[in-house]
């Protein structure tokens, strides 16, 4: 029972990360109309910037953590001018291909140029493995508790922003039609920048949480996260925030159980099998799209 609890805690923590990634991705897709496949790469790049700042400031968390968030916001905002011509021409597929270009460039920088391509490791103050809660074999670390709490708070906060505020109403108007939103007096370009900033903020928080729970970062981590993010987004239905949260959790749990109970390396296969199954038999996703 204790083992099951420990596995479940790991699964929920991983699932929250996937859910947050899918939330940032869905926000960009819903409001701006961009398929940002490279979103996890920007998150991992922020992890690299966090690592570099920690190194430069002698592990000063007070400077490094805001720097990571600022870097993530900056990186996401920097992609806005690239996507804008495609958004204006409503080239959704082209935005996916462009994000692949961003992905190739960032992967190459992480794989060859930073730390000579060697995966980076985060220092002890950030990656404390000390258990806060302990029940038999099951333990919960600071990173896990923070991940779950911040993940749920972020999704609730976003839901509140989108469905309970004037700003959210403007964002939702943009999901229907940028042209009509502009006619209604909504500053579409400024709002788009706002969404990129929110996605960047979320990405920065994710970078810190990933640094705390994973303790290391590398280019393959970004690719792995990108696959999981898309698995969650497709399985839940593209642009579905609520579904993304639930599916992220489910994926984390399924992955955690399969890692512990299945022989061999089948964890990714399960997530990917979910994607193939969803696309083939329920292309609009398990939850209704854009709920």
């Amino acid at each position, binding site marked *: 029972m204790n083992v099951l609890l420990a596995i479940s805690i790991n699964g929920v923590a991983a699932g929250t990360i996937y859910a947050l990634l899918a939330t940032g991705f869905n926000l960009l897709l819903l409001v701006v109309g961009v*398929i940002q496949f490279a979103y996890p790469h920007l998150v991992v790049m922020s992890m690299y910037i966090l690592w570099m700042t920690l190194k430069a400031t002698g592990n000063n968390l007070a400077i490094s953590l805001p720097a990571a968030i600022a870097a993530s916001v900056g990186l996401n905002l920097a992609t806005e001018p*690239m996507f804008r*011509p*495609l958004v204006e*021409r409503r*080239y*959704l*597929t*082209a935005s*996916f*291909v*462009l994000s*692949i*270009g*961003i*992905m*190739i*460039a*960032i*992967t*190459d*920088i992480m*794989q*060859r140029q930073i730390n000579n391509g060697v995966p980076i490791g985060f220092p002890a103050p950030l990656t404390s493995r000390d258990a806060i809660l302990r029940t038999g074999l099951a333990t919960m670390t600071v990173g896990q508790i923070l991940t779950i709490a911040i993940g749920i708070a972020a999704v609730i906060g976003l839901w509140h922003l989108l469905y309970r505020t004037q700003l959210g109403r403007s964002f939702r108007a943009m999901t229907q039609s940028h042209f009509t939103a502009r006619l209604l007096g909504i500053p579409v370009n400024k709002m788009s920048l706002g969404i990129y900033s929110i996605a960047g903020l979320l990405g920065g928080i994710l970078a810190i949480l990933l640094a705390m729970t994973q303790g290391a970062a590398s280019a393959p981590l970004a*690719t792995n996260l990108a*696959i999981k993010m*898309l*698995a969650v987004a*497709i399985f839940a239905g*593209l642009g579905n925030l609520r579904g993304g949260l639930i599916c992220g959790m489910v994926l984390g749990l399924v992955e955690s159980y399969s890692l512990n109970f299945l022989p*061999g*390396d*089948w964890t*990714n*296969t399960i997530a*990917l*099998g979910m*994607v*193939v199954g969803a*696309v*083939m*038999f329920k*292309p609009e996703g398990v939850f209704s799209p854009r709920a």
Partner: protein
Amino acid sequence: MSLTLTSFLQFVTIFLLLSWALYLVYRVGQIYNGPVFTMLIGAYFSAYVVRDLNWPFGLALLTSMLIGAVASFIPALRLARASAFATAIATIALVFIGQAVIRNLEFLGGSFGFFHIPIVDYLLPTSYIAVFVIGFLIYRLDHSRTGRAMEMTFADPDLAAAMGIDIFKSRVWLQTIAGTLGALAGVFYAFHIHTIFVTNFGLDMLLASFCFLFVGGYTTMWGPVFSTPVLWSISIFLPAEIATWKGAIYGILLIAVLIIHPNGIIDKRLIRIIRGKCQSIFSRRANYQIEEARNEVK
């Protein structure tokens, strides 16, 4: 011929086949990554049957293509109805599932790789003959009624369906053809490098092919013909200091082309201009020759 040049020429054929495979399905509005999945199947199958079961190379090549066709035809029956993005993701998933399966199969070397794949004589000429034949067939397809139907489907699937084009059928067949080309590329890859790892057939391979297709131009088959040798030469012929930035250069080029010239460097307009120029040069020369002949007669 030097080893570097041989390797360059061989990789050009491999990536050209892959880019054409992506091109064919993109013509009907789908981003299809299945060729890398069938490339994995083709490479491992052919390597295994030739090395361990002593099959002749030709038979292994044909059987791999057949298996590639079947492996892409079955999912195509469902994927043909999915959106461009969903197809892209599902087929990326297939690539990773294929990797996971082979990683867990010990007789194929698992994670350690499949070594000592035999040397095949005339691999390079064989692959160039294959590329010319396939290129000719794609050219014919592009200039046929089916090609025009494909173009129509890309421009407006609803209108294409209203005009009686069977989009589902064309997508299924094009995905199957793309899968077959992927398997063929896999065979050439395996027998060229002699040692294969599952990680060879992953996102890197896919992203490079994407880059060749979209930088070169996805509206004609000539786009990848131009971009594949040019971009691949970055890693081989340029100085090491520049070559280490290969991935970043690919990424930046892809972004720049999509922003500045979304159709890619070689598009239909450019092809028309080049053709017009060639025709005018040839007609001018022909006129000059006629004039000369007339003068001689006088």
